[in-house]
């Protein structure tokens, strides 16, 4: 199929739906000129979770600096921008409004059009960003129909993309997101935060068959459930502690952490890969996209790529965790398809992809 040709446009993207304040300038939905993220991960690690100032205040403090920095790093001014794309939802209302108001103010002052973007749509379009940083090595974008797995701390969704901006949500988690299951199990095993990297590191060298944790395949649906595997790890840890004759709160336990982590990781990855592959086959998707923070997991990357019938696109990590380049990329495709938003648009804390 011939690659579609779209008009050029330079988009400023702004993202503030959860913990990260981010801004980015992207050309033609694919070439990233700058990608600035103000994250508070170090503070989070100290508290074993996200620092309370997650919301409005921290975003307000950083949003001006982050946007200015994104423009400066791209060597452009607001005049050189064709449109401003901003995350409208889903996310925390208090956080979303900071980015939205910033974008609205800039749009009002400059007369530039504003484009409201769905955060999940942003994750999907992270796969359209050219992973190569130089223009000489451009890779062709994903080919439709695409089967996308968005897998992060807050989301686990299977989406069929038939064409630009045409999303069909096949299913999603009914309880915990995959990334959340990693965080919670890391907490159970007391191996650190964030849970994804901690579990992966601990699982290294562990026996994947040491414990048989359930794989909730949710047959007949494209939904996921990771609450059961979490509870199963919890039950096993309690059993082991009882066998080892240690109390529940004993810090100095001699648990087989490597085996527990490896068996758990394998169970989660098995479900993700199995369901994504089956869905791709069922809906005759040409290619697969895996986006969101959990796509950093090496076992997932390996299992989903090896033997896949078509290309599997897994964006570089900087575009998988929350960022504004993906918002600018999605904003580009909305903009060139004529989907410009009204300045009066509100934040949408709850905003399923199907209601775009």
């Amino acid at each position, binding site marked *: 199929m011939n690659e579609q040709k779209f008009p050029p446009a330079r988009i400023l993207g702004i993202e503030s739906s959860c913990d990260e304040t981010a801004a980015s300038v992207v050309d033609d939905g694919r070439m990233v000129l700058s990608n600035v993220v103000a994250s508070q991960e170090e503070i989070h690690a100290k508290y074993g*979770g*996200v620092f309370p*100032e997650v919301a409005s205040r921290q975003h307000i403090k950083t949003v001006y600096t982050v946007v200015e920095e994104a423009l400066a790093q791209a060597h452009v001014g607001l005049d050189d921008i064709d449109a401003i794309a901003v995350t409208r939802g889903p996310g925390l209302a*208090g956080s979303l409004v900071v980015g939205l108001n910033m974008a609205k103010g800039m749009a009002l002052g400059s007369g530039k059009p504003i484009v409201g973007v769905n955060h999940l749509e942003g994750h999907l379009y992270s796969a359209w960003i050219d992973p190569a940083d130089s223009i000489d090595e451009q890779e062709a974008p994903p080919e439709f129909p695409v089967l996308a797995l968005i897998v992060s701390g*807050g989301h686990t969704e299977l989406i069929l993309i038939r064409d630009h901006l045409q999303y069909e949500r096949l299913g999603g*988690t009914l309880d915990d*997101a995959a990334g959340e299951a990693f965080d919670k199990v890391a907490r159970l095993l007391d191996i650190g935060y964030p849970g994804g990297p901690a579990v992966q590191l601990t699982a290294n060298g562990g026996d994947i068959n040491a414990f048989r944790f359930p794989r909730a395949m949710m047959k007949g649906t494209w939904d996921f459930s990771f*609450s059961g595997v979490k509870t199963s790890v919890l*039950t096993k840890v309690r059993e082991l502690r009882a066998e080892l004759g240690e109390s529940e709160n004993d810090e100095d336990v001699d648990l087989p952490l490597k085996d527990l982590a490896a068996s758990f990781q394998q169970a989660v990855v098995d479900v993700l890969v199995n369901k994504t592959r089956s869905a791709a086959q069922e809906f005759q998707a040409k290619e697969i996209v895996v986006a969101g923070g959990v796509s950093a997991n090496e076992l997932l990357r390996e299992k989903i790529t090896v033997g896949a019938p078509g290309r599997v696109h897994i964006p570089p990590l900087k575009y998988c965790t929350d960022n504004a380049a993906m918002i600018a990329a999605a904003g580009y495709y909305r903009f060139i398809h004529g989907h410009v938003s009204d300045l009066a648009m509100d934040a949408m804390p*709850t905003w399923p992809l199907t209601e775009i």
Partner: protein
Amino acid sequence: MPILESNSYEFISRSPEQTRRVGMRLGAELKSGDIICLEGDLGAGKTTLVQGLASGWGSTDPISSPTYVLVNQYRRIDDERFAHLDAYRLQNAMDADALDLEELIANGPLVVEWAPRIIEVLPEENLNIKMTWVEEEHRQMYFKANGDYYQKLLEDFKKSMLGGS
């Protein structure tokens, strides 16, 4: 015996499905502005109970854990919003303004998981539910009403529990 106190109620659920059904009964009683505080460790069944609460209330949206996003809001056809807050990541140094609790309860009930972590900013009057892991599928639920309004709510809920299975 807590079970005899009028402002409390104890229930042992034997499966996640039963926990969900109990939630649905209570959820059907919830009005805008009501606050339910949940406590209990990982795997105690908090999210399962909230799934019941929100669907009993009439949510048209699927209910999932808000640990990462902090707040989920579920919609109902009359435009009310059921707010589901997870305070786990908030720890103790709360920034109450950022969450805007008043806004959250303006158009629907609010359920808070890991409520003890932000107890300073929650209203003193509420319905507290403590969940405890008993064994693999069994979970204990201890309901305690704080304030007259919630005592009435708890009594209505108890009647509904005793009235049918």
